[in-house]
């Protein structure tokens, strides 16, 4: 009886084509990379993406403690668990080989990105909710990574941000500002048993600016040591490290310059236009916006995901500029301190429209299809 039900369920979720979609071709290889003489294999892509993420993650760990690493480990664990569950439902023969990180870069990377976005030492269930939403709803409901209309990691992050806003605002104070470094053991207990009420938390620089409008920028920087020199202690260094990782991705030809370039440019231009160097109401300086929050992570690792962004160069430029503008808009006017996740989600959903408007070939095929109807 139970077996029958399971079979029916499996049949209902089964995809028509043989379950071989998790292969090297499923790798997020951009057109540029595909035209290379030796296209990178899935394992290579995963490895390179992880190499590019490592410096930033290590800098984060240095400033915010072991919680960053436990976040990454727990989120990746849950991503694999949910991936296995989804494969159990969608394919006839799930095997551990299919959920090996080498087969599909989209296995670990969403978990990793979610882990970097959530406060260090987040409880296990928070990471489970975020990873589960990302893998099950963001990816497998649509039939796999290549079909997903939005960035799965940002979907998972947005859902937990909406459901548990308080949990997501409790960032530990960066080291060097206040002693908050915890031992591995304390972090592990924290992750398993829930957040420590005695933990020293501090508003992130973006939070601080969002909730302190009407001050003089200079006063705010003197009163709040965590703002550091430009984008906040820990944040500016981590963003610089992610920038390095992003340059590595460009060199590996996993991404093209269009999206990061347009994103950073539009964010810089908008910040420069509205910043008046005095009041904190006008939003931070361009440097502050570039080096705070998840800017570099968004520019090089999140917005550039090939399945959810336009494929043509003009579309990419427009897409990147849209993400940058939305990040600035949400940071300065919206209710949320950092707009990266929302901006990327909104732009992802507009990507097909952007692609149609900027690519005459696609426009023609779409109108031909409409004609045929």
């Amino acid at each position: 009886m139970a077996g029958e039900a399971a079979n029916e369920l499996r049949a209902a979720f089964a995809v028509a084509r043989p379950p071989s979609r998790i292969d090297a071709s499923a790798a997020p290889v951009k057109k540029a990379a595909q035209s290379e003489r030796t296209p990178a294999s899935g394992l290579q892509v995963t490895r390179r993406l992880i190499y590019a993420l490592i410096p930033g993650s290590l800098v984060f760990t240095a400033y915010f403690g072991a919680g960053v690493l436990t976040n990454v480990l727990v989120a990746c664990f849950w991503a694999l668990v949910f991936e296995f569950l989804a494969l159990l439902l969608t394919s006839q023969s799930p095997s551990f080989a299919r959920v090996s990180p080498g087969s599909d870069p989209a296995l670990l990377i969403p978990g990793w990105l979610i882990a970097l976005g959530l406060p260090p030492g987040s409880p296990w269930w928070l990471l489970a909710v975020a990873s589960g939403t990302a893998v099950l709803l963001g990816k497998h409901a649509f039939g796999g990574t290549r079909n997903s209309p939005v960035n799965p990691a940002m979907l998972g992050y947005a859902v937990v941000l909406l459901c548990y806003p308080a949990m997501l605002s409790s960032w530990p104070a960066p080291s060097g500002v206040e002693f908050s470094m915890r031992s591995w053991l304390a972090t592990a207990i924290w992750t398993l048993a829930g957040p420590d009420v005695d933990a020293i938390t501090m508003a992130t620089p973006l939070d601080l600016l969002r909730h302190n409008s009407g001050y003089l920028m200079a006063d705010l920087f003197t009163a709040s040591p965590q703002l550091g020199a430009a984008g906040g202690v820990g944040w500016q260094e981590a963003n610089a490290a992610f920038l390095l990782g992003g340059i590595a991705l460009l060199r590996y030809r996993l991404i093209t310059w269009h999206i990061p370039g347009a994103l950073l440019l539009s964010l810089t231009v908008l910040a420069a236009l509205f910043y008046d160097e005095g009041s904190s109401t006008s939003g931070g300086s361009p440097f502050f916006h570039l080096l705070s929050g998840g800017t570099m992570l968004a520019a090089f690792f999140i917005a550039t995901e090939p399945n959810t962004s336009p494929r043509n160069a003009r579309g990419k430029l427009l897409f990147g500029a849209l993400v940058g503008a939305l990040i600035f808009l949400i940071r300065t006017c919206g209710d949320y301190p950092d707009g990266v996740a929302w901006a990327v989600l909104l732009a992802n959903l507009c990507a097909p429209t952007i692609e149609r408007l900027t690519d005459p070939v696609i426009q023609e095929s779409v109108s031909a299809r409409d004609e045929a109807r």
Partner: protein
Amino acid sequence: MIAEHLLLVIGGALTANLTLTYLTGLDVLAETTHSVRAATKMGVRVGIGLFASSLLGCMVQRFVLAPYELTYLQLPALVLIIGAVCAGMRMYLERIPQSEQPPDERTAASCEALCDAEHARPAVYQQAITLVGGSATIAAALLILRAEPTLIQSIALSVGMAAGLATVLIVFADLRQRLDHLLIPRAFRGAPVHLLLLGMMALALSGLSGIAG
């Protein structure tokens, strides 16, 4: 002054989006987003209808209902206004050459009888929705009247709401077009995946809360 009204337009389009925040106009969404062209056409049409009817509604409220203390007649008055606007639009649309707009001589009653006919379905439904204006039109008028705006403010709000609705229709049509090429798991094919997508759009738009004041 201008900035204030611009904020109203943005607020009407994004933070008070008819489809994604108030879940109205889903009938229009379901029926017209099968093709990008139909969605664009419908977006423009519903936008114009929405703009005209909420503007008229505002004027009636201001010059007739409020002075004579007849505000309890707001809803019937709005229904009448929307009916009149839609009838006017229909008369205008029927004058457009046949290639662009198939003339529909059927009455509303025979519309429903013809629903099952495969070939007639989209056209008939589109006509029916243009006639009724969908739930979005009346929702927009009520929402705008509830804010008790001045005439210029109501124009700004209705322009914003119409633009927001049209944008959602077009973006959703493009997303649907893309989904048509994909192999979606059978359990999610069709309506479930569309609803999921709509949920994602609503989720993403909720991130913009607060930008318009």
